């Protein structure tokens, strides 16, 4: 199961070049967006109105970009709409389910609209509903489902035609914390075990950073940052050292050890460059015979990276 993952890392699935979308009223939804997205689970984060939905609609060929270009699997959604849509599954943000049919029937119908033959559509619908955990309930009318179950039906219909890419618009919308966790776990499973790349749109960064391989942050239609999560957090791991006295002496001692120490209040922050950093700090503290209060690893939340980046840009 490792082979596809490492293979997936190198494949570019979405590539945009100066992508711009201006609506009729002069509203700019996307502005000069250039980004290459590799296969995997991708978080697309931004506040409401940042241009996430516009980006998704352009990728589906629902609206044409005003300027620039976009390629999904190397295909142009404006021209090769059908080829793109055959390989992409879309889960919209809003309610989109009729209450008076069963989930099995509805997902089968949408499978046929994706071009599956009748029996294949029925089989794939059952499979998709099984994978989202609705196998037992699939013959019940959707109107009687809970919000969490409805979100799963929406996910199943996006999966029914076996796409290579899922576009999920706010999949955790309206779910309680347990439901959110379940949905995120499911999305992560699809991205890692099913071999399907997933773009997860969310306005909650904390939510998607847990399950994503890479992040695209947009604000006001502009690209804020796009990178792999590992690249974003690797440089940010620091050790926080707290001693009750002698903080200046420790600062000097660590500086002499060629460590890039910074002072933050009553703490010293040391970048975690290697496993030996721990030992070096402990040895320095022991040599100075200082009372050590705390020594732990501080993992920067991705959110902090965006804030600093943002202020740096201004």
């Amino acid at each position, binding site marked *: 199961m490792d082979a596809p993952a490492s293979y997936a890392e190198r494949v570019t699935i979405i590539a945009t070049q100066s992508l711009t979308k201006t609506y009729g009223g002069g509203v700019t939804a996307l502005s000069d967006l250039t980004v290459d997205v590799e296969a995997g689970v991708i978080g697309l984060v931004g506040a409401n109105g940042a241009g996430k939905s516009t980006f998704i*609609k352009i990728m*589906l060929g*629902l*609206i044409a970009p005003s300027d620039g270009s976009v390629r999904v699997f190397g295909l142009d959604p404006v021209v090769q*709409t*059908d080829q793109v*849509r*055959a390989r*992409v599954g*879309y889960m*919209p943000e*809003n*309610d*989109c*389910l*009729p*209450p*008076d*049919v069963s989930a099995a*029937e509805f997902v089968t*119908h*949408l499978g*046929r*609209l*994706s*071009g*599956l*033959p*009748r029996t*294949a559509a029925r089989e*794939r619908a059952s*499979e998709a509903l099984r*994978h989202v955990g609705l*196998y037992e309930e699939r013959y019940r009318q959707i109107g009687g489902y809970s919000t969490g179950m409805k979100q799963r039906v929406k996910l199943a*219909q996006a999966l029914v*035609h*076996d796409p290579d890419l899922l576009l999920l618009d706010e999949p955790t919308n309206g779910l309680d914390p347990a439901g959110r966790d379940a949905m995120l776990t499911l999305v992560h499973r*699809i991205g890692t*075990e*099913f*071999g399907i790349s997933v773009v997860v749109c969310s306005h909650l960064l904390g939510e998607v950073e847990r399950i994503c391989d890479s992040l695209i942050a947009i604000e006001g239609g502009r690209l804020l940052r796009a990178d792999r999560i590992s690249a974003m957090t690797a440089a940010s791991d620091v050790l926080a050292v707290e001693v009750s006295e002698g903080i200046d002496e420790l600062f000097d001692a660590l500086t002499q050890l060629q460590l890039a120490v910074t002072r933050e209040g009553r703490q010293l922050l040391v970048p975690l460059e290697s496993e030996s950093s721990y030992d070096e700090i402990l040895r320095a503290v022991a040599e100075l015979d200082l009372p050590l209060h705390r020594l732990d690893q501080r993992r920067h939340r991705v959110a902090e990276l965006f804030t600093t980046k943002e202020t740096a840009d201004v």
Partner: protein
Amino acid sequence: MSDAGVIHDIGYQRYEGPRLGRAAVFGALYQHGLRASFGLGRSIKAKIFPWLVVGIVLLVAVINAAARAQFDVILFDYFEFDSTISWLIIFFVAIVAPELMSRDMRAGVLPLYFSRPLRAADYVGAKVASLVTAVFLLLGVPQLIMFLTAAFTLDGGIGKVWEEFYGALLPGWAYSLLWAVLFASISLLIASLTGKRAFAAGGIVAFFLMTTPVVGVLSILPSETAQDLAGLVSPMSLINGVYIWLADGVDLGLDVGRFGPIYGIEAFCLVAVALLLLLARYRKVASL
């Protein structure tokens, strides 16, 4: 631990089978719409009304056929049959058109449709084709029953049957198709304007019924031109007029005088405009 009843997770299976093109997708949506027209694949509640109408229409046809076979009395011919049950057609499209259009809008399923290899034109085309077929079946099947009864009871052998088929049933079917096309396109357009089924149904009934009294008033005006043109106001008399023009003077209880072509042009324009408006509307919806 017995795991006899456990469903083993066999993991995710990729689909390697064929993916059909837009024609098949159109076909699937058409078939779905046609089934939905008669409440098939829906709850009992959705079946009641369409089948009630079907039942009444069939009963009328059977009574008519029986009267002709038993007493040699023709209550109405194939053309008059359509006009006779015109109210039932109105109620039928008033229920079915919102079922086909408003329901999708209400539930918000359109983004799911239009993110698939399906265009606005395909959607509109499939829905119109579904309703045209449904209305045509509603009219054509009873006409067929009338024909079959006549065929088995008519005196005069096979020649008479052929004459009945070519001279009466086929034109009757053509006339039914005309009804189906006009009623389907107009009622679907009205239904596409609202997601509320009750409003859509009310709008459709109102559109078809409100115009009838106007025809009545105009047709008793002293001016002969006004009388000849009166039929243009209501869709039902418009269809009568078109057929009178096409079949050159069939008596359908309406006098179109020399204005036959105008009836034809209006019917054509009405259908064309309704379809174009539908398309324009769904072009917009599809990109949302």
